[in-house]
């Protein structure tokens, strides 16, 4: 386990815990930046260079800026901090810790090497024929682009239907619908009376 992995993993986990603990929304946004940026570092360490870059560009550069704008537009005066009741916090923390231990036990209980060997035996793959040679160099941009266009040169024997052209198109139409819907929902109109 490398030093960088330890640093990024600790920063991601501590940032997430700080998001839960801090009361002010602005501090939550700051710790979210720390956590998401460290996750991008983890992606780079896992040889997913394009995913790490997309994480930095879209999450840290786009979504977080959007959230900060939302905070600035809505957090006025007394509404900066809306405290939760202590009972709810204690119950949620207890349930969270119990769930975390359950997941830890499950992860440590699975025989990953054995399941990998079984999958390889079931799909008649050999260790060398897994394709995706660019992964060792961390160069995933070209295979990802081919996969989104429906062509899979990295899959051995060229399995038909392994591409992602249809989900890509659905995602693009979905983004257009979201653009129109968000602009419609957030358009300027006369403020109504407070209920």
């Amino acid at each position, binding site marked *: 386990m490398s030093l960088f992995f330890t640093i990024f993993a600790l920063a991601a986990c501590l940032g997430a815990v700080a998001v839960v603990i801090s009361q002010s929304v602005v501090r939550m946004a700051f710790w979210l930046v720390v956590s998401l940026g460290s996750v991008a570092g983890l992606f780079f360490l896992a040889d*997913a260079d394009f995913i790490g870059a997309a994480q930095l560009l879209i999450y840290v550069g786009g979504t977080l800026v959007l959230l900060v704008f939302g905070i600035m537009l809505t957090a006025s005066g007394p509404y900066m901090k809306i405290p939760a009741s202590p009972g709810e916090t204690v119950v949620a923390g207890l349930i969270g810790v119990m769930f975390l231990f359950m997941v830890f036990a499950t992860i440590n209980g699975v025989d990953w090497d054995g399941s990998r060997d079984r999958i390889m035996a079931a799909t008649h793959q050999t260790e060398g024929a897994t394709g995706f040679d660019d992964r060792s160099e961390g160069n995933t941009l070209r295979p990802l682009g081919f996969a989104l266009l429906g062509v899979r040169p990295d899959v051995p024997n060229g399995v038909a239907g392994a591409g992602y052209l249809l989900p890509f198109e659905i995602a693009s139409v979905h983004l257009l619908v979201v653009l129109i819907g968000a602009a419609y929902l957030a358009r300027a109109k006369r403020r109504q009376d407070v209920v």
Partner: protein
Amino acid sequence: MPAELNSYLLVGAVLFVCGVICMATKRNAIGVLMGVELVLNGANVNFVAFSKFTTLGLDGQVFSLFVIVLAAAEAAVALAIVLNFYNNHLTVDVDRGNKLKG
């Protein structure tokens, strides 16, 4: 290999649990949104880890890309809804959104 895969999965689990607690306890609507972002990031860590350490190959990375794109879309729509809520109620406290209660 299993030790590294396990450590990636543990990071994903911590992010997921923090996001769920954030969603359950925060009364600020934007805090709830941040919890959703944390949960989706935990799922992304798992996708990328399985893509590297198992026979999943590139498919995990493609799916984490879709998750990132859909999370951005979800944040935009949810923020527009929160702004609308703020315009009507002058607060972002989710406990005040009880107009539909019978």
